[in-house]
């Protein structure tokens, strides 16, 4: 333990100050001082205790004191108050002397300190009289001192590298996004996904503040002699027990260079009312500014007006190629395993690349390092259970989570014979191991599997699954250099059978494999620089499969859809530089290279001719893994943070990204048969350039963060589809696709309150997104080559998430979502062919479906608060769509016996009420 070490150090190396704290010369006083000027405090203490202070008024200007209690140690109080201001204190014979330098005013009295054991005991939190005084005084914010490093000879370097780890006192879980802030230099660091932080600082004395969502703030004095490790534990705050919505904290919001960035933790999921009683991370992020979906229940999400295939979803670095269960109503991984998630919408760090719109980075929980525990729950659709615990206490742990649907009972009760034949079920499993062989190394392994199967009547069968695993090794190579090496495997496959017409019945199997190795290095230098560099390599094996006849009666002609292989590699280098205390610059460069590999027939079309079979001038037949085409991409990433004041800042960022695979989908929502496809000889990789500007303002007193961001992005080579494109009829995707440009811009405002009885956020965004597919080649245009609103163009979007904590057991949540209806192409005229009515359409997406509005409520009732109990449970009662508004999911026009009529489909036609029950081992406060 670090503190034990301090105690010994204090004995070996003299610290007269510390010794004096236990000196008989110390004076005890009582009283209450709330933020009073130092002089006033002095007067009061002099009056009460009779001591006399000696100092210059100019030294103590601006110093204020807050303390209350009985028998408070004056020495401690003065030390904690004055040290940060660079003042030293000596108490002797009724005199209190303040100086600006450390004086050795007498020789160390080793013999006099024979009660060494007393000191050691203190380190072990035995209670001495001095300690008792300390505890008494603690009410007043007495500061514990953390000492780092040793003052051994030859260690007189002028910089020290701190490596810290912040964990939850109770579970031993690393705390993500906890911040360390050094008041004196107005700088800090935040912990990463493993709860680690590194910081370079000059040796000296500091006041340091640790903050973390849901945890009690911690203020310490820190004395840094040289570089070293420190381990901080934080306790849950009383407020945190009320599961307040806490977000990326103050450090991130105002002081970090990051923008277009949202970090939430799993507790938020308990607050946001859910449909069918299933907590769901993907539904939560849709409440954030700039994130939308094409409709409720639709798979995927759209970030800043971009298509859903431009988002990368990672769980512990494993890519998730299909993020939905059951058509999109649920997310394909259980929320039980989610600890923390971060969404990058702009200003990507150089270490990330390969997706244009966003990175959704999910960190899985690490098992509890200290004790075994279990969580679980039942909702109308699924049951779930997770187990976690230490393998070797404090060193290694595991977590296993599973969820399965049991919803077939609903189908069995249906009247329709066809529907009764239907089956739907899904499940997902995940597990993680973590192991800390030493202070310098952390090894994590993660595995994930999800599976969906449904058959609709006797006509269609679908089955799909995601699987993946990652091994992550993090090691500190030297004081300054930390490396993070990951090996990742991810796969997605589906199988579908269409037996609607027996003579045309067919089946298809599709599969994509993703093999990745990734290395990220961090190099720290004193304050000014934080250098990151690294690279990754991905091998994709993609088999689009074949359309094969299904059943004895099928005459379907087989179609080979072909294989796709590719390698994506990238290297990057970035530096975060503090130019001045107020101005931070992040600059990075990423170089990505994609090679499209054989086998697979490649059509070469005549220059400037459309991609149609008639225009083929050559056919290439590459060997397996022969390079057919190479694309490279040099991607600058830059951002600038200008601190305007202590609580506000202005940020600017620019970045460029290229993407080397896309989804073949001609439907608005992602369907279970949509296929990923790599860019190839004929399809060039889409690219985005994005500029953002933002203003961030915090109001620390109310726990309020606000921000406003503006962005503009321009996309090139975005893949769109020809009218009536059919992806299962040809291996040559270029014959059914077109590429165009997209322009998106908007404003996002966020008001977030994370403390107090009422918490939550209000997010408003205005965003536009326009597509244009124009070409010199006739027939290669969409909408006559004119710009048109993209399917994700929903200008106004307002979401409100609020949580009211009535008491520790009962809380109420309410959500409100409003957004402009998505664009739609409407029929504008009617014409007759052979006396039958048909419709002709407007310009593409010239109209909008009706606006969307929804209000949800939920009530959380916690079990009793007894401390000693085997398990704790809570009930969640959810009212989804309280107003019962029939929001349009889609509008369509149908020919009813010769006349055209319009209809609107609403997925949730009334309020959906669900009750779910959840439990965990331990009491209310247990993790």
């Amino acid at each position, binding site marked *: 333990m670090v503190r034990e070490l301090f105690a010994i150090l204090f004995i070996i190396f003299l610290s007269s100050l510390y010794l004096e704290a236990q000196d008989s010369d110390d004076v005890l006083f009582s009283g209450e001082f709330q933020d009073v000027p130092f002089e006033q405090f002095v007067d009061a203490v002099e009056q009460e205790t009779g001591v006399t202070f000696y100092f210059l008024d100019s030294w103590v200007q601006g110093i204020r004191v807050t303390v209350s209690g009985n028998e408070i140690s004056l020495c401690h109080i003065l030390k904690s108050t004055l040290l940060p201001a660079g003042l030293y204190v000596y108490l002797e014979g009724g005199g209190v002397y303040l100086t600006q330098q450390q004086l050795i005013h007498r020789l160390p009295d080793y013999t006099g300190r024979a009660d060494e054991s007393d000191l050691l005991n203190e380190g072990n939190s035995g209670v001495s009289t001095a300690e008792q005084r300390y505890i008494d005084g603690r009410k007043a914010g007495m500061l514990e001192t953390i000492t780092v490093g040793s003052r051994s000879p030859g260690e007189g370097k002028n910089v020290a590298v701190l490596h810290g780890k912040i964990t939850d006192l109770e579970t031993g879980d690393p705390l993500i996004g906890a911040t360390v802030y050094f008041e004196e230099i107005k700088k800090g660091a935040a912990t990463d996904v493993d709860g680690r932080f590194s910081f370079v600082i000059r040796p000296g004395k500091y006041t340091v503040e640790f903050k973390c969502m849901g945890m009690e703030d911690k203020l310490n004095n820190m004395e840094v002699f040289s570089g070293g490790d420190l381990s901080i534990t934080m306790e849950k705050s009383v407020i945190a027990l009320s599961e307040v919505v806490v977000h990326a904290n103050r450090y991130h919001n105002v002081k970090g260079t990051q923008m277009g960035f949202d970090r939430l933790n799993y507790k938020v999921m308990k607050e946001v009312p859910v449909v069918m009683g299933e907590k769901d991370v993907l539904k939560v992020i849709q409440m954030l500014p700039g994130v939308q979906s094409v409709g409720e229940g639709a798979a995927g999400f759209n970030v800043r007006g971009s298509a859903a295939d431009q988002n990368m979803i990672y769980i512990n670095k494993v890519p998730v190629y299909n993020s939905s269960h059951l058509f999109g109503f649920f997310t394909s991984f259980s929320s039980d395993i989610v600890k923390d998630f971060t969404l990058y919408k702009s200003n990507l760090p150089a270490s990330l690349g390969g997706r244009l719109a966003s990175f959704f980075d999910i960190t899985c929980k690490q098992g509890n390092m200290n004790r075994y525990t279990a969580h679980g729950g039942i909702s109308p659709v699924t049951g779930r259970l997770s187990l976690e615990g230490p393998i070797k206490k404090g060193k290694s742990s595991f977590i296993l989570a599973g969820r399965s649907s049991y919803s077939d009972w609903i189908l069995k009760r249906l009247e329709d014979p066809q529907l009764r034949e239907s089956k739907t079920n899904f499940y997902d499993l995940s597990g993680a191991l973590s192991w800390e062989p030493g202070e310098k190394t952390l090894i994590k392994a993660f595995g994930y599997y999800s599976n969906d199967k449904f058959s609709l009547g006797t006509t269609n069968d679908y089955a799909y699954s995601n699987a993946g695993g990652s091994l992550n090794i993090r090691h500190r190579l030297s004081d300054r250099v930390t490396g993070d090496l990951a090996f990742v495997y991810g796969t997605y496959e589906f199988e579908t059978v269409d037996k609607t*017409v027996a003579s045309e019945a067919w089946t298809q199997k599709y599969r994509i494999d993703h093999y990745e190795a990734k290395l990220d290095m961090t190099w720290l230098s004193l304050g000014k620089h934080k250098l990151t560099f690294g690279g990754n390599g991905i091998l994709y094996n993609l088999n689009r499969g074949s359309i094969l006849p299904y059943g004895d*009666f099928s005459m379907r002609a087989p179609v080979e859809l072909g294989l796709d292989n590719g390698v994506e590699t990238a290297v990057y280098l970035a530096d975060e530089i503090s130019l001045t205390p107020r101005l931070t610059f992040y600059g990075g460069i990423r170089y990505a290279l994609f090679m499209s590999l054989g086998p697979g027939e490649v059509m070469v079309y005549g220059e400037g001719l459309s991609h149609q079979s008639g225009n083929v001038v050559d056919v290439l037949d590459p060997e397996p893994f022969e390079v057919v085409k190479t694309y490279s991409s040099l991607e600058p990433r830059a951002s600038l943070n200008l601190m305007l004041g202590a609580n506000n800042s202005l940020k600017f960022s620019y970045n460029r990204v290229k993407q080397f695979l896309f989804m073949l989908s*001609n*439907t608005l929502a992602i369907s279970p048969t949509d296929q990923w496809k790599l860019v190839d000889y004929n399809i060039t990789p889409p690219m985005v350039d994005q500029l953002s500007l933002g203003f961030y303002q915090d109001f620390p007193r109310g726990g309020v963060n606000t921000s406003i961001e503006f962005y503009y992005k321009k996309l090139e080579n975005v893949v769109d589809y020809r009218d009536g494109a059919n992806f299962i009829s040809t291996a040559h995707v270029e014959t059914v696709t077109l590429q165009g440009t997209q322009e998106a811009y908007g404003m996002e405002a966020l008001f977030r309150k994370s403390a107090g009885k009422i918490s939550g956020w209000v997010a408003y965004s205005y965003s536009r997104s326009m597509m244009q597919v124009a070409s010199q080649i006739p027939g290669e245009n969409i909408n006559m080559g004119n710009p048109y609103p993209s399917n994700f163009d929903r200008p106004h979007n307002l979401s409100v998430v609020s949580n009211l904590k009535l008491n520790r057991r009962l809380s109420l949540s309410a959500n409100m979502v409003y957004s402009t209806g998505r664009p739609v192409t409407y029929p504008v005229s009617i*014409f*007759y062919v*052979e006396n039958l009515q048909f419709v*002709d359409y407007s310009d*593409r997406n010239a109209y909008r479906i009706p606006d969307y509005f929804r209000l949800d409520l939920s009530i959380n009732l916690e079990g009793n608060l007894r401390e000693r109990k085997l398990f704790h449970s809570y009930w969640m009662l959810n009212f989804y769509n309280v107003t019962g508004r029939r929001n349009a999911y889609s509008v*369509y026009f149908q020919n009813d016996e010769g006349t055209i009529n319009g209809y609107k489909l609403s997925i949730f036609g009334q309020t959906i009420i669900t009750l779910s029950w959840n439990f965990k081992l331990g009491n209310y406060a247990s993790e």
Partner: protein
Amino acid sequence: MPVNRKYIILLLMLILASCIDPFEPLIEERQELTVIDGVITDQPGIHQVRVSRSTPYNDPSFMPVQGCVVTVEDEQGNLEHYTENWNTPGVYEVWLDEPFLGVGKSYALYVVGPNGTLYQSDYDTLLACPPVDSIYYEVNSIYDPGADKSYEGLQFYNNVIGENGGCGNFRWKLTESWEYHSPYTSDYIWMYGYLYSLLEDTVSTCYLTEPISTVYAASTDLLSENRLLKNRLNYVSNQTPRLGIRYSLLVEQQSLSGQAYRYWNELKAQSDQSASLYETQPASVLGNIYNYNSNEKVLGCFYATQIQEKRVFVEVEELDFTVGFYTCVLDTIQDFNSFVPENYYYLFSLAPLPPGPPWLKGPKRCFDCTQWGGENKKPDFW
């Protein structure tokens, strides 16, 4: 994408209370485009071409274009001129016969509009059509979520056996006919103050013939053989009186070129639109007719086809489910005092012989089947 829409939506409706409501979008745009449609068949007789303008969505009507010059040309350059029908504006007709008509020949249409605009079609080839192989039905129940009930009915299918290398694109035009009876047969008629006995009943059995307005098209393009088995045609529910006595379905099978098939298949997809989670972007359905003078798009299609026909009958005795029938409510009357002298009333007597009061009186449609839209003359094919 090939995701079965119907069942997903039905499932959602039952589980999540999803619903489908009529919706009238606010569309103010007016787009008037020229629409030309016509067909050349191998059957000698009158051939028609219709020229019209499209009308606003909210106010649909057939808006004919009169005064056009319409000409069809075969690939040898033989021309035939259409003349406008005096009774139905916008319809242009010509009598065509062999040798102008013939399998394997190609035809193009030229239309000069009243303002001199020239519209021209691609050549379309009249392809040989295999005979209609077989037409048959299966008893099928359909679930109505609104009423939470299943109804019985007949799903018709057909097979096509094409020659290898022959035409593999087809369209079917269906016409249904059925016999039905008036709810009651009257014995007497009271007319202008007098009671007449109806010796011969001529209005209780009727026949109704209606074209089915659904587009049916299919292709063997994706199949390894030029055959279609169990191609789905229309569905006849027992909730209408169609199957009550005798039902007949006439199938007209047309062979289509690839271009004409794409056109009809897209129109079919447009009319088949239904509620779906996986909506695709709709697009204008454009055929093979172009405006020679400008880029303005032209709606409609001109195509050539050989026609094969087959008719099948279904007797009520074949069915093991009940079928709906027309009903109406009768009043009981004791004497004729309440009758208006200028009117006539159909009656039948509840009294045993001799006929007398009480009488049952009803509106005409209770006794006269022609009131329900049919004719009381038996069709030739019956």
